[in-house]
């Protein structure tokens, strides 16, 4: 039965008929009702609005990013498990081919754009202003808008599979498959619109962090005294600004092709599908480095702290990340050697790709030399960093294999490639965000994650990861292709696929322990901890945990690299004298970023469903928000000396009774 009122096919809005999706719909409904009911019952709506939704505090925005990222990790992980279940045995029928296509598309997009990116940006938000001794980012309200645009895009993308149909052309959404001709439903509109909205937020984050790091460093912190995480964030932000506009254009052209019948990427009327592949990877490859560089920065901080040594080869680290950033823009063709650009072009990109291994290798040796003769503490954060080194090297070396244009014809589109990028992204990014979370958790919340559960989390996750993805190298070399929903028994792939599926269960168990650890620590962890529980080296540890909203009563002065370590060793600048307390100016909260999130969500939703008139009309909401912002002259507020005195005395008093939480 087809129901059409005002040109809208109402019966096609909700996806029906699939038991897994029906289950999800019920689960989403119940969860939403549970959250709404819970907030109402506990009378937390006002608290939620005042303390979180309208906040412009970089630390709270960071925490919201991280919460969203953990939820997205769960969603993307479930998609991964579904794929592993489907391919565990030959000719399984848990998912049909269409559903499988939707699942791997969602898995890719969510893990890269809605898990890895927000997780890293969340940690950047929490840590960077503290590391450079600032009280907030350069544009606090814009920062909130960045988060809410990401959130808007993420939510739009996530409802796709229950409302209207999920995108199914892969996370790369190659044309002509992703075009209207071969994907006539609205599924791929979700891809084009929701990533566009989230991408705008990311671009603003990039600009915000460049200005923050260039202009808001505290006295004495020259560029070459910046902590390595700050350096990598700066360079990452530069890559964001250089690469994301390309994606903006690519997605806009995709939208025009799908919604308004233009011919950028179509086969007919002179369009070029290869143009999409080029534009996508011109953004997509730098994107890989956008997620890996901050991770490198975190490992640098953690390895240095727990080796109790200054980072080895600081200057070469800086040169390496700049070199990686430059090279990241010059390698995009290696994603499609088999498109036949010719031997000369492929050779050029083979060489640039292999060159990336050089600065990356420099960094690897620097981390190893940092540990050499260090007094290493085996904390959970350090374990993740240690496991990163060999696992990432496997990913890197197979990457050099793939970089060779001629050899790539053998590996292209096989599970060998899939194993390779999981070996880069999981040890590189996922290990890093876990390490970072264990490391900075006390700074965010004033208590630690349980170290014992952390070790369970670590071992299950690392073993599970290797068991899942190592067999995929061999499957790929034997000819198993990626994105295929099943295979025959005669192929002989069955045992390795089964092993891989078993590994994914261990991996999932690791993630479950992680979630349990968060729960356990919130309930039972010791609140009486030092503001510097790891005996760390950088400025974020020079203030209280959790950090008071103005960050520093007195902005610290930096005299060397590892500023806080220097302050501790020389006993300089740690105490706060009463006459040094001054009124502090802070930005006011604002509900506008959240309202813009709603406005963008509404416009985006209408565009996805191709309800053009409604979309055009609701654009008024966005314009109204912009006008409101233009006339908004709220200049923030000042914190009184008394309040600062009170806040500072509470945490400085606690310093005496430090418990040992590390062992």
């Amino acid at each position, binding site marked *: 039965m087809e129901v059409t009122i005002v040109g809208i096919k109402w019966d096609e809005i909700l996806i029906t008929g699939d038991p897994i999706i029906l289950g999800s719909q019920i689960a989403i409904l119940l969860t939403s009702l549970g959250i709404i009911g819970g907030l109402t019952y506990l009378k937390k709506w006002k608290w939620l609005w005042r303390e979180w939704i309208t906040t412009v505090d970089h630390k709270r925005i960071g925490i919201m990013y991280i919460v969203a990222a953990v939820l997205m990790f769960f969603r993307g992980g479930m998609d991964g498990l579904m794929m592993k279940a489907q391919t565990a045995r030959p000719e399984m029928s848990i998912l049909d081919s269409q559903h499988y296509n939707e699942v791997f598309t969602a898995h890719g997009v969510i893990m890269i754009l809605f898990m890895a990116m927000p997780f890293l940006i969340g940690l950047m938000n929490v840590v960077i202003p503290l590391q450079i001794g600032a*009280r*907030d980012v*350069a*544009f606090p309200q814009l920062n909130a808008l960045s988060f809410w645009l990401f959130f808007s895009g993420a939510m739009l993308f996530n409802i796709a599979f229950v409302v209207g149909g999920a995108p199914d052309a892969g996370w790369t959404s190659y044309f002509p498959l992703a075009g209207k001709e071969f994907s006539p439903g609205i599924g791929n509109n979700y891809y084009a619109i929701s990533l566009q909205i989230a991408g705008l937020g990311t*671009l603003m984050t*990039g*600009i*915000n962090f*460049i*200005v923050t790091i*260039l*202009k*808001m460093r505290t006295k004495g912190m020259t560029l070459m005294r910046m902590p390595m995480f700050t350096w990598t964030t700066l360079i990452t932000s530069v890559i964001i*600004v*250089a*690469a*994301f*506009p*390309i994606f*903006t*254009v*690519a997605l*806009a*052209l995709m939208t*025009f092709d799908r919604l*308004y*019948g*233009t*011919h*950028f990427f*179509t086969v*007919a*009327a*002179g*369009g*070029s599908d290869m*143009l999409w592949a080029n*534009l996508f990877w*011109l953004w997509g490859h730098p994107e890989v480095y956008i997620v890996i560089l901050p991770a490198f920065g975190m490992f640098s901080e953690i390895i240095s702290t727990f080796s109790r040594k200054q980072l080895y080869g600081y200057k070469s680290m800086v040169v390496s990340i700049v070199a990686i950033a430059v090279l990241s823009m010059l390698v995009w063709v290696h994603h499609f050697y088999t498109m036949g650009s010719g031997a000369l072009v492929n050779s050029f990109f083979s060489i640039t790709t292999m060159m990336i291994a050089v600065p990356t290798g420099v960094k690897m040796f620097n981390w190893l030399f940092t540990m050499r003769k260090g007094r290493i503490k085996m904390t959970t954060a350090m374990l993740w960093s240690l496991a990163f080194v060999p696992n990432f090297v496997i990913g890197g070396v197979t990457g050099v294999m793939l970089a060779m244009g001629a050899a790539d014809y053998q590996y292209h589109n096989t599970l060998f490639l899939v194993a390779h990028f999981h070996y880069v992204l999981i040890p590189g990014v996922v290990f890093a965000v876990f390490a970072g979370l264990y490391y900075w958790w006390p700074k965010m919340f004033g208590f630690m994650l349980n170290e014992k559960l952390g070790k369970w989390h670590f071992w299950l996750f690392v073993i599970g990861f290797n068991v899942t993805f190592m067999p995929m190298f061999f499957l790929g070399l034997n000819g198993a292709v990626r994105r295929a929903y099943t295979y025959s028994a005669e192929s002989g792939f069955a045992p390795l696929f089964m092993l891989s599926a078993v590994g994914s269960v261990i991996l999932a168990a690791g993630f479950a322990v992680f979630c349990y650890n968060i729960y356990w620590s919130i309930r039972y962890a010791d609140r009486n901890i030092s503001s510097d529980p790891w005996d760390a080296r950088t400025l974020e540890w020079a203030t209280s945990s959790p950090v008071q909203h103005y960050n520093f009563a007195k902005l610290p002065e930096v005299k060397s690299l590892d500023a806080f370590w220097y302050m501790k060793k020389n006993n300089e600048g740690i105490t706060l004298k009463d006459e040094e307390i001054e009124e502090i*100016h*802070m*930005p006011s909260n604002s509900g506008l970023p959240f309202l813009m999130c709603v406005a963008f969500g509404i416009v985006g939703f209408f565009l996805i469903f191709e309800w053009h008139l409604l979309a055009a009309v609701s654009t008024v909401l966005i314009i109204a928000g912009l*006008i409101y912002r*233009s*006339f908004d*002259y709220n*200049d*923030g507020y000042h914190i009184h000396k008394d309040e600062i005195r009170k806040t500072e005395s509470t945490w400085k008093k606690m310093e005496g009774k430090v418990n040992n939480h590390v062992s």
Partner: protein
Amino acid sequence: MSANVNTSLPLEYQTEQSRMNILGFWIFLGAEIVLFATLFSVYGVLYKNYAGGPTHQDIFMMKEVMIQTVLLLTSSFTMGVAIWEMRRNNKKGLIGWFILTLLLGAGFLFMEINEFIHYIHEGATMQTSAFLSSLFVLLGTHGAHVTFGIFWATMVIIQIAKRGLTPVTARKTFIIGLYWHFLDVVWIFIFTFVYLKGMVL
């Protein structure tokens, strides 16, 4: 954040927040350069794919394009004069030249919309061929920027009229100035690589 006022600098640079906003906007313009560069390269790939539809020579109207160009380049000059008046602390002069700038911009926009209508009458729509898709989107993105700029500048003119020249209104004016000159630079590239090249080659 609001502290650190340096009165020896021009009004728009006096507060630390203003200096950061201006730097941030320069970086944003960097992103805009990448955005337009991408659109230009898309046009560069597709500009000969007529798919049997109209070609450059069939549709371009060079006289009208010349008038558009003069209007927009003049508006960049008047924008410069407006900023100069702002530096002289002459509010009236600033608003006058600012409004003239926007009128020139609106004239440009009017011409461009007429140009689009003419193209569509000739049977050259966005859906006709890859060449026309890329042409419309490149020109349209620039035109949309001009439109946005006019509305945005109108907001700022109202604020100058109401609040006078303060560090905040001066900074907002200065930033729109940067934006406006940037659009002019993009137009020079469009004029050269789309219109001139299209007519000659």
